[in-house]
């Protein structure tokens, strides 16, 4: 009887451990994580990217719809090829990076969750904060769970990886970024591409 109870306790504990959600840290030591942005105005096209990305996502491989997380981008890490354009972009008239140093997305709910193998697609709704303005936004995401692959990326660490990809569009006018101004050169629509990987060391 005692042996049976110990066995049962072990099975239960292992089961709980296997089903436990994992927390993934998105600070990337390899510098690959990036958020690209594209503004395609009639007179000018602006392409750039941001690399100062950090945050955490809690992901349960057994319940992928319960994924929760918060991803932050340092405004000062936004880069465009032209130095004067970058200076203007980060300046007071546009993003005001000194006053608003971060761009944040915090998830609330995952819907339309579909999983095939390691990959899950869903529509995530959350709060997107840019230049101090917070709006609820829904965007499509693709999550790829790479179990035990952390060592392949960072040889000194064992654990899992979670890759998140998303492409969505926001309007700068919604976030009080010079609404209605210079739209022939700086389009209102900003297409954002998120490509990030997080690690959950064991």
């Amino acid at each position: 009887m005692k042996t049976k109870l110990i066995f049962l306790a072990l099975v239960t504990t292992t089961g709980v451990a296997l089903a436990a959600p994992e927390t993934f840290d998105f600070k990337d030591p390899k510098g690959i994580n990036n958020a690209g942005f594209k503004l395609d105005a009639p007179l000018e096209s602006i392409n750039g990217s941001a690399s100062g990305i950090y945050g955490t996502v809690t992901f349960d491989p057994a319940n992928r719809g319960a994924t929760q997380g918060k991803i932050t981008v340092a405004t000062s890490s936004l880069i465009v090829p032209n130095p004067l354009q970058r200076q203007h972009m980060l300046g007071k008239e546009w993003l005001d990076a000194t006053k608003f140093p971060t761009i944040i997305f915090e998830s609330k709910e995952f819907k339309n969750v579909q999983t095939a193998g390691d990959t899950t697609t869903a529509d995530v709704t959350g709060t997107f904060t840019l230049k101090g303005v917070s709006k609820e936004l829904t965007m499509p995401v693709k999550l790829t769970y790479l179990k035990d692959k952390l060592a392949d990326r960072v040889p000194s660490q064992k654990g899992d990886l979670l890759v998140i990809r998303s492409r969505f569009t926001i309007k700068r006018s919604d976030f009080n970024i010079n609404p209605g101004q210079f739209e022939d050169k700086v389009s209102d629509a900003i297409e954002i591409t998120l490509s990030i990987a997080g690690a959950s060391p064991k």
Partner: protein
Amino acid sequence: MKRTLRIIAAGVVVGAIAFWAATGANRGWTETRVPKKVVDEVTGLEGVQWQDKFVPGVDFLGAALLGAGILAGISIFVPAKSK
């Protein structure tokens, strides 16, 4: 002097156009950083690494033409060398 200024002005125009064309004839603004795509083999993610590189744009051409125009303009007011 008059002739020298005009030769320099022509040289600035030709040199600027040649440099602009040789570096890719960028029809946008001058760039001092260019993106280089890198792929992470484990995750398959495509990242961007920015490299310092000067790529002249139309503003560079404009500045060169303006400079050449000023030189040519000055040459008008320089008295011709008496023979």
